[in-house]
């Protein structure tokens, strides 16, 4: 027994000796204790960055439809998304790295959403909220409705529901953080709906007909209700 005690004492002494007088007690934290005697940690830079990214996400303040009401409730009191390090919505896409797509995307809005997504700095992540962003949801039959946000931008996490409860969105965001920490993101596939210059479109019947109305340089997006899955 006594030898064990001695060992422990020796170890403690060694640790304290290594620490030296060190920083003020006030700077000692649980984290510091966890790292042990050394103020240094060894990790891969990528891993560290991913951990940072996941733990401090800047959300884009972006509302579309019904789901944005539940999203506001998620940010506000009671559910308080800030507890998860993701509660400061930014009004400008240039300051944000996560976009929650809360609502039905329609043909007129799709090019704008694409533009907003393009304006966000890399790396960026997308949480699609609600059935409409999964498949068009209850409005899938609409002549004007895009069948899911994934037709326009790549999506990392789908949160289904109509609308999802705030708890579901919190869970989705937590899952996203987990994925980011693990260095996973969804593959960026070629989307059916891309912004292109009108002049670059394949010259089919529809394009021919609109050729007089639309300038060559104008950015356009094709919308094809029947053709998308």
């Amino acid at each position: 027994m006594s030898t064990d005690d001695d060992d422990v004492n020796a170890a403690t002494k060694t640790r304290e000796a290594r620490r030296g007088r060190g920083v003020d007690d006030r700077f000692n934290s649980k984290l510091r204790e966890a790292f042990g005697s050394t103020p240094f940690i060894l990790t891969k830079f990528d891993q560290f960055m991913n951990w940072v990214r996941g733990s401090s996400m800047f959300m884009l303040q972006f509302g579309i439809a019904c789901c944005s009401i539940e999203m506001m409730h998620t940010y506000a009191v009671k559910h308080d998304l800030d507890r998860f390090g993701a509660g400061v919505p930014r009004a400008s896409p240039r300051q944000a790295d996560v976009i929650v797509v809360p609502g039905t995307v329609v043909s007129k809005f799709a090019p704008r959403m694409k533009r907003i997504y393009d304006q966000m700095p890399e790396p960026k992540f997308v949480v699609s909220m609600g059935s409409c962003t999964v498949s068009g949801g209850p409005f899938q039959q609409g002549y004007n409705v895009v069948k899911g946000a994934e037709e326009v931008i790549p999506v990392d996490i789908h949160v289904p529901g109509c609308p999802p409860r705030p708890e579901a969105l919190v869970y989705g965001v937590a899952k996203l953080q987990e994925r980011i920490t693990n260095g996973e993101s969804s593959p960026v596939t070629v989307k059916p709906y891309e912004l292109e210059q009108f002049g670059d479109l394949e010259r089919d019947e529809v394009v021919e007909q609109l050729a007089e109305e639309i300038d060559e340089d104008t950015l356009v997006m094709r919308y094809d209700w029947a053709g998308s899955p």
Partner: protein
Amino acid sequence: MSTDRPDDSESESESEPEPDGDVEREAAVPETDPEVQRARAPATRGVDPDRLERLLGDAVLRRDDQINADAAFEVRPDAVQDSLETLKRRAGFDHLSCVTAQEYADRYESIYHLKKYADPTQEVSIVVPTSRRDPTSESAEPVFRTADWHEREAYDLVGVEYEDHPDLRRILLPETWQGHPLSRDYDRDRPQIVTLDEHANPLKEDHEAEADDSTMFVNIGPHHPATHGVLHLKTTLDGEQVADVEPDIGYLHRCEEQMAQLGTYRHQIMPYPDRWDYVSAGLLNEWAYARAVEDMADVEVPDYAQVIRTMSAELCRIAAHMLAVGTFALDVYGDFTAIFMYAVRDRERVQNLLEDLTGQRLMFNYFRVGGVVWDLPEDRQAYVETVRDFLEELPQALEEYHDLLTGNEIFQLRCVDTGVLPPETAKEYGATGPVARGSGVDYDLRRDDPYGYYDELDWDVVTEDGCDNYARVLVRLREVEQSARIVEQCVDLLEGWPAADREVQANVPRTLKPEKDAEVYRAVEAAKGELGVYMRSDGTDKPARFKVRSPCFSNLQTLPELAEGEYVADLVASLGSLDIVLGEVDR
């Protein structure tokens, strides 16, 4: 609904339009005795169709008898302005509630639903048929400003063209869209091309509008924190002042009317109204559809169900107004501040109550044709107590809002005398709800066209004469008090209701097939104003035409009147005080 017309309809249809109505209204306000109110309701329904026909003269092609409107006249396509002018000036129909366009196998039709602000139970429909080859009729815009947007929508979705319209172009769909989706020969398989061009780049050409060097063009939206969703304001600024603003809508046009036309009356339509005005006002919207279909199919709703409807709908109104006030504070004060958080906290409490009742936080789907889906939750007493607890703490919460908002000097500086909407202009644009009542227009369908259990209860219609942003916010806060009064009385009624007599639904057939060519236009007082539903049956179990009269659509149209000439910061405040919700504007 009674068609017999007691004596006072004579005096009612005298050719004195608004003043007459106002006098009558003044007398009606303090009148809270349910007996008197009930007596008043059926007495004023009904206009004199013969007299109107004489007024309209040879413009009339045919007289039509609809279920709901007291009179419907088919008029010549080139006599629309004259007819509407006559009805407006000489018969007092000063409220163009809705314009519905539809296509039949052999013709197009535009229906102008007219009402009186003084008494909305008096209705008349002007039906304008046009041929399929040349669907052109005269625009109503010179008579009613509000027809501008309504006719643009009719052109966009159905394809009727309006002569004399100041700016007839698409309003909901992208400008380059091909075809009119609610017309009969629309080809939905055809691919479409949407441009990003109309969203002009504000950085282009050093911010300067082409014509005038001293002005600057700014896009506000469609993604902007102050637009409450996906609204796009094309704004031209002269220095700090708004020289011109044009709302560009349609970024959330998710085909609600088409969706309803695809669903069966009995169950499949009811989930959609929740998503028109999605700010927790779901039950108020469901009521609009329920009222229309119940009138159409002649369903009598049991009293007990009406009390539950009234209570739950008013809870919705409280939640909706809370969000309106909270986001308005967000607009004028800045970031997520205390008031917004307080408002959300109170909303959470209401949402909990509604969730206990309906099973959902936001999209309730609780009403059914002929009643509601189920009774109050067990344990009944506990639920009643929870509602009472909420009501008990509400006055204190409202006191806080008044301290933070309406009593705040900075807030008053921002809101008093900004965004002024004179009552006459409000009527021109068909404004309703808190927007109209903030301009002193005493118009509330719950009292003026009673439905549900409202006419049995003791409550007041709130109006303010300020006509400005401040008045509109104040109306909402005061309406919360009135809603609480209504809920309180409903709770008492529900508590004392004999257990044997708790009928939540009328006996409604499994499949509803209203008569062929039956038409109905019915409106209720939703959170934002008069929410109307027009339906036409073709004898099947699905409506042939389903049209939503959205209060926000008309209210938003007043924005240029409020904002032009004011500072751009006041434009944001005005937009916030209109309290639009894009789901309902665009449908």
